[in-house]
């Protein structure tokens, strides 16, 4: 009775076991990557932020030395303090920089959305054969070095640069205004540099969208603008959220653009961090700034994840 089913089972079992080690490895690789390149560095930075500044190499104390024995290690651990965080909280300069960074990132992201969505929409609705070309045009700037492009903007925005020459030629201004070293220049640089990061994810969701859904909406009595509002926009939301995060997060910590195009008096947190590290050699404060920045960045990511879960799991 049992002979035949048993051979069937025997045949099935090894196959299932063979698949398992491979799939485990797939999880291990990214986990290992995260541990080595994110978690470990993060703990090092966190530890430095709890240390004291000294004029030495490295420029902080304590330096953990496992060879010095357990007692020494305990002593070192006890000497860790929140002094660097206290300093950040007490000096308005740091708080102002955080505030400034958040403000710039929010405004830039809003502008990027206003420009990026129509571009993505236009590409997604363009004739099929044109889409790869238009897509390439968006990606094309990446083929030039980022730094060179920002230097080009410095050139364009100079007092006798291309932009002012154009304004003069069109008779919009009489005397050439100064653009460089202003928030406007920073905003121009940011919007220019991050536009592809906004356009591409939105394009990806719009391109995937089933256009018969819009016909269904029209069929059920929704005029075009309403179908856009009730169908296109909600369906593009994952792309919009992804685009906003892809812009907001790096802009918050942006260093190069505000440093090259902005003024020195309104520093963003990236610039302050740079100054603390390289000019003041105050690694603990710089590390503390970085930790706070990360904490600041955590909540939009968490919000995004919750939104994602809501989309995939449905209500409740």
């Amino acid at each position, binding site marked *: 009775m049992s002979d035949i089913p048993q051979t069937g089972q025997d045949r099935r079992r090894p196959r299932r076991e063979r698949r398992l080690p491979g799939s485990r490895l797939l999880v291990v690789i990214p986990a290992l990557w995260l541990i080595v390149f994110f978690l470990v560095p993060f703990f090092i930075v966190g530890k430095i932020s709890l240390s004291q500044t000294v004029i030495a190499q490295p420029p902080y104390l304590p330096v953990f030395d496992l060879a010095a024995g357990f007692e020494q290690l305990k002593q070192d651990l006890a000497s860790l303090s929140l002094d660097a965080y206290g300093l950040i909280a007490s000096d308005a300069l740091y708080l102002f920089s955080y505030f400034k960074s958040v403000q710039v990132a929010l405004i830039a992201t809003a502008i990027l959305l206003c420009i990026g969505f129509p571009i993505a929409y236009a590409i997604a609705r363009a004739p099929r054969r044109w889409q790869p070309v238009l897509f390439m045009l968006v990606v094309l700037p990446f083929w030039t070095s980022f730094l060179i492009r920002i230097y080009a903007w410095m050139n364009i925005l100079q007092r006798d640069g291309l932009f002012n020459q154009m304004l003069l030629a069109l008779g919009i201004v009489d005397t050439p205004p100064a653009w460089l070293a202003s928030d406007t220049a920073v905003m121009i640089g940011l919007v220019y540099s991050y536009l592809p990061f906004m356009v591409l994810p939105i394009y990806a969701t719009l391109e995937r969208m*089933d256009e*018969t*859904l819009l*016909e*269904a*909406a*029209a*069929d*059920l*009595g*929704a*005029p075009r603008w*309403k179908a856009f509002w*009730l*169908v296109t926009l*909600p*369906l593009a*939301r994952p792309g919009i959220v992804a685009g906003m995060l892809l812009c907001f997060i790096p802009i918050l910590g942006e260093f190069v653009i505000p440093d090259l195009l902005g003024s020195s008096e309104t520093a963003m947190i990236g610039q302050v961090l740079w100054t603390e590290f390289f000019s003041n050699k105050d690694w603990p404060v710089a590390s503390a700034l970085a930790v706070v920045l990360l904490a600041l960045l955590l909540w939009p990511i968490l919000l995004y994840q919750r939104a994602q879960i809501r*989309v995939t799991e*449905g*209500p*409740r």
Partner: protein
Amino acid sequence: MRTALRWNELIGATGVTNAAVTDAAPRGALVRFENVTKRYGDVAAVANISLDVMDDEFFALLGPSGCGKTTLLRLLAGFESPDAGRILLAGEDISQVPPHRRPVNMMFQNYALFPHLTVEGNIAFGLRQEGMARARIAERVREMLALVKLEGLGPRRPHQLSGGQRQRVALARSLAKHPRLLLLDEPLAALDKKLREDTQFELARLRERLGVTFLVVTHDQVEAMSLADRIAVMNRGAVVQVGRPAEIYEQPASAWVADFVGDVNLFDGEIAAAGDGLVRVATRTAFQIAVAGSAPVGAAVTVAIRPEKFMLLTQRPEARDNCLPGTVSDIAYQGGVSLYRVRLDTGFVVQAAAANATRRGAVVAAGDRVWLAFAPEAAVLLPPGEAS
């Protein structure tokens, strides 16, 4: 083509004309296509079609893919506008009315359910556009869910439903607004066979209960015949025949229709003798066939005989007319019926079908000698033409 033109005059007696196409529409026409043409580039997807759909009717547009049936549906829904001609809905020209203002709803082939909305949200979508009060919407959504037997699934999302459930949500959504006319684009194509049969009856029941005119597009002749009160058979952008399912099946307007709607054996030939409501056709396969009808001697014709019209005899019958001797070459057992491929003595292969009335199985085996007999009325006299 030359002969086809003469045909309307020639075969008056058999009633094979495009009468239903050219007839003046009775008062009850809900939809009227008047010389409607729609071109895509050089290709006319719909070429000068005139067609009436009656009020409170289950109407089917049947044809192979690319015949223009879906274009006709989209013209009616308003997603396309005609290049020429008019489309009247209840006597009003709606050719230029945008889709969201037409009192017509559509059930899409892929259902086109909004993935970001719940089942309730999908059904309520159209009602919200009307500015209906919240309480009324909730009530109507409940009604519709009960109608399609999906009570309790309201808070689900489309991706959490089975194919059959999605189909019913799509149906509920398209019926929620009480349209005068419901368009159904291949409504059963995505369902498996068993579900399809159930849904067919369900659709017919719903239509009768709601009194909504249904216009269904399908490429499946069985579906069209079992669902519809009337069928328009389309080919290459034109309507080739309009009629009740039985008319289309038993009295096809052309060899193409005969072949597209069901299985058929076609014999080309010409009239050898005529008289007394009976013609004798000399077929190219060398048989003489007697067919009910009238046509002048010498006219080229095609004779169509459905497989089930043959009587499969194992002994030579006494009557000499319409009895084709041959040998069984293949048998396809299908449960209720068996299909027999019979190689006639002339070398021509025909198909015959016989019900398996007893449980003993087929009485004929492959290689057996058989005679295929049929009555003159069982064959149809058609203008010469190509099969589909």
